[in-house]
């Protein structure tokens, strides 16, 4: 019980800490991509910048507009933060720790519907934005909130469909068994390149990150759903976005990049157990696995920021086009290919073959039935 509490506390602390430093790294990466150096005043290399930012937000006036719905206005950011923090509960951060003979999983709760839990909680997350935008009593906030809601619903479909292919491969909804089924270099990304691509694009949309940051598109909607927010309420909204980014990076790493698996992990854990004995060796191997997992998460967080400073925002109709006419049909095709591959018994080969055939067919179609591009 105490240990469970400690793990939950640890995971909370880690996801908050990572989200804090995401704000710093977002600014540094943005600066680097724009040939600047970024924040470097607060502490060495500016590493105290997030604390300075948080301090500033705490001391700002906590303002509620007169015509706003006061309780919903407060509820919005609280809900956004709550749902963002709840998702990390089911992510398996590592294998297990052996402590006084009992095996403790490095995971807050191991439920057999893990990925459904993530989906359920993430789709609740849009309520935070929607309630905040509605309660602000401001047309720009409402526009932002409506955009967020419709965007999240549209992209959740494609996301869910691309996920079904993964579930078909691991035949389990539990995140831990999905990770364990990828043991030994059998990462899902090798089997599901198309599924990974769809999931990645959808996760950008789910996190409201550029190129899909329409809910807060600052040059059209002032600041979108958080136009009327200030002080730490705004801070919570922004912070929940960063926590969501961390969570979705973790989910991508779990589903497609083998979670805490890394090449040669059996050899490493075998050597460690031989060197330090069963218990310590196992715990050390778990630690290395956890570190690998965080490395993967860090890469995906970097990827999110990298994309943010590369791509411009989609137009709203382009966003809907891509979601409904592009990603959902592709996800369905992916399910069919995966189903065929699973039935054939040669999953890897048939997956790639099916994908190649699909691309060839689409290419042939576009070659035959669309006007050829002329060179000017």
């Amino acid at each position, binding site marked *: 019980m105490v240990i469970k509490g400690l793990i939950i506390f640890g995971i909370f602390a880690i996801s908050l800490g990572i989200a804090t430093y995401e704000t710093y790294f977002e600014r540094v*990466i943005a600066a*680097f*991509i*724009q*040939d*600047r*150096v970024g924040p*470097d005043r607060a502490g060495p290399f500016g590493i105290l910048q997030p604390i300075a930012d948080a301090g500033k937000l705490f001391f700002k006036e906590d303002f509620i507009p007169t015509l706003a719905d006061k309780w919903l206005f407060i509820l919005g950011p609280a809900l956004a933060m709550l749902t963002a923090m709840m998702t990390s509960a089911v992510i398996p951060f590592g294998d297990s720790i052996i402590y006084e003979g009992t095996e403790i999983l490095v995971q807050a709760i191991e439920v057999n519907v893990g990925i459904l839990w993530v989906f359920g909680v993430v789709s609740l997350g849009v309520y935070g934005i929607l309630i905040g935008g509605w309660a602000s009593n401001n047309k720009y906030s409402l526009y932002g909130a409506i955009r967020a809601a419709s965007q999240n619903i549209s992209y959740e479909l494609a996301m869910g469909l691309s996920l079904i292919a993964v579930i078909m491969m691991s035949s389990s909804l539990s995140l831990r068994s999905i990770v364990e089924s990828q043991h030994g270099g059998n990462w899902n990304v090798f089997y599901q390149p198309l599924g990974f691509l769809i999931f990645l694009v959808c996760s950008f949309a789910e996190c409201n990150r550029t190129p899909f940051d329409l809910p807060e598109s600052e040059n059209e909607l002032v600041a979108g759903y958080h136009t009327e927010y200030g002080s730490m309420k705004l801070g919570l909204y922004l912070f929940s976005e960063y926590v969501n980014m961390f969570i979705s990076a973790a989910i991508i790493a779990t589903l497609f990049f083998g979670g805490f698996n890394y090449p040669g992990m059996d050899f490493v854990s075998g050597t460690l157990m031989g060197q330090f004995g069963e218990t310590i060796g196992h715990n050390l191997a778990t630690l290395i696995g956890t570190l690998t997992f965080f490395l993967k998460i860090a890469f995906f967080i970097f990827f999110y920021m*990298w*994309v943010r*400073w*590369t*791509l411009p925002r989609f137009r709203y109709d382009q966003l809907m086009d891509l979601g409904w006419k592009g990603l959902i049909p592709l996800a369905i095709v992916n399910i069919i290919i995966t189903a065929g591959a699973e039935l054939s018994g040669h999953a890897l080969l048939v997956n790639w073959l099916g994908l190649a055939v699909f691309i060839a067919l*689409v*290419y042939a179609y*576009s070659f035959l039935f*669309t*006007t050829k*591009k*002329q060179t*000017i």
Partner: protein
Amino acid sequence: MQLTQRSKKTDKTPLTLAEKSYLPGIAKGMGITLKHFFSKKATIRYPEQKRYLGPIFRGHHILKRDDEGRERCTACGLCAVACPAEAISMVAAERVKGEEGLYREEKYAAAYEVNMLRCIFCGLCEEACPKEAVYLRHDKFVPVFTNRDQVIFGKDKLVEDMNNRYERDAWTKEEMQKLWEQQKPVNY
């Protein structure tokens, strides 16, 4: 009809399949941003690192002395007349016997004040001065003031210190160009 050499015709043909998937374009863009991520940064970290602003930068005012340490200013008032912001005011006085080492001519400025809130650093005082007495330094800014009584700079702040004389480091265009080339290349 083509009006200029720079005009480009817009390509309005339908996108090919690869273009419609956005992916090649995204990959190309990501390559560009990654290149910039590792490239040299253009930032000059200001208070620690300072850029050479050139020999004709107009900064802090200075009242020059001549080589024997005598004040050059004769309080003729031409700078005050030239000043478009009316920032300069002065009180003239007659040199008495025994002060030949302090003031070059028979008349001198007993008080010479520049109101730094009014001054627009145009350099017209510099141009108006017939005695080559007032200059705007190229190497020093007027310090930040936080209070109204710090705004008016008197002779104590303006007259040149003989132990730390001010020299402009370039007088011609050629000398200036040489100095510009000497400073470290800035990557824009």
